[in-house]
């Protein structure tokens, strides 16, 4: 994990227990703020069909795909059962001076 740190947004741009889409150099990511106020990042598209997860619902540590309700744990990327069976890639996140950064 020696990638560059990329600034995503300000901390207050994402509500607690919510998600935001972040596009960077032709790639798309989903950045999450958990109910206990930690930040996480995964690939932006569901592994079932090419759907942006940021339109989905965050409940606790689960992101649910807006299209077919595929569920992932966004902290680990783990797929939680049908219709999704392939895990999501996750990326390191840090918060500095009120801003959120991901390493990709």
């Amino acid at each position, binding site marked *: 994990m020696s990638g560059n740190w990329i600034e995503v947004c300000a901390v207050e741009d994402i509500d607690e227990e919510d998600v935001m889409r972040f596009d960077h150099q032709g790639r798309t990511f989903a950045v999450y703020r958990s109910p206990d106020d930690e930040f996480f990042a995964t690939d932006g598209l569901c592994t079932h069909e*090419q*759907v*942006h997860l940021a339109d*989905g*619902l965050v409940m606790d540590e689960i992101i649910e795909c807006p*299209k*077919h*309700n595929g569920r992932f744990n966004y902290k680990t990327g783990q797929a939680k*059962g*049908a219709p999704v069976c392939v895990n999501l890639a996750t990326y390191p996140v840090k918060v500095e001076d009120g801003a959120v950064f991901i390493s990709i």
Partner: protein
Amino acid sequence: MTHFVIVGAGECGARAAFALREKGFDGEITLIGSESLAPYERPPLSKAVDGGTAWPKFIAEPERYAASGIRLLTGVTVEDVDPEAKAVTLSDGSSITYDRLLLATGARARAFPGIAESSKHIRALRTHADAEALRNAMMPGKHIVIIGGGFIGLELAATARVLGTEVTVLEGLERVLKRGVPEEVAGAICERHLLEGVDIRCGVAITAMAEEGSKAIIHLADSDTISADLVLVGIGATPNTELAARAGLQIDNGIAVDEFLRSSAPDVYAAGDCCSFPLAIYGGRRVRLESWRNAQEQGALAAANMMGLGEAVSAVPWFWSDQYDVTLQIAGLAEGAVQHLRRDLGDGAFILFHLDQAGRLLAASGIGRGNVVARDIRLAEMLIAARAHPDPAALVASSVKLKSLLAA
């Protein structure tokens, strides 16, 4: 060793087979399908798919069946079930005994009266082979006539337009999507089709239809005649209950099952499009659903109950449709609603909340570009499951997060 047999290798049957393994069932599993392909997803068959999408889109990679200890038999039909002997007879003459049986036989496209199923230019859509034939006819310079302005018909209309095909939709009722979609939402979809150049004609009666050379000719009651390169009949589906009926199982708009998906015969379960079941959240009303998610969820639920886990149906019905870049989503069943509240989400997207006399949320219907309505429909689904009576003012104010109503 305990042997569970699943008849029907569509969404429901395949999900049931994998769910048995995920829940720890260690007996034998046999999954029997009449099509030659391994189980695949049907929703993409009618929708515009981009070049990057697998076609067919398998539910699981074919090698995963053997790897999961699931014996998959394809291209085989089950001819008879004997609930006394606990055995099924296959079209190849062989017989298989079971300890528990799941009927996931699905539904088939309703045929247009008087038209042979093998008609080359008059077709229905249910299988991958059907979809291939339809795709081959979708190109500039061709004219497709779609009979029936339901989900299948309108999704195919959109797909055909995207591929440059001229499209006419003939609907017998006074508007499209009459079954299950509120007029305001159907109107928004209809407008989009008109903008895309689809010729939608409602309230038309077809008096005759015939193949003439490489064309199909449709005669309308108003004496108009339409010539088409292909006619797609999308006038609904019929549950495949014949096998169950022959075995003496109770039929009631589908194979009748209880809330644990048990049929009237011991150790025989039914799930998905082929069965009718009581829905507790709507007072135990018996319904039959034709939807991808229901097939998937009931497959998993049947698996749990075949293993004796005793899980009752509790899911809120949920449907979606993709047409052009627009998605429609519906959660719940709106029958009995007296109040319809609109929440606008911007860019033409909106959600209707359907409430009964007492203010209980029964259903929500949303339409918008991409997945803009998805999150609120999902939250509405949770409110419906909780039998909530949400504050009407909060429902219409898009500034109020629906999530905040869940905790209330």
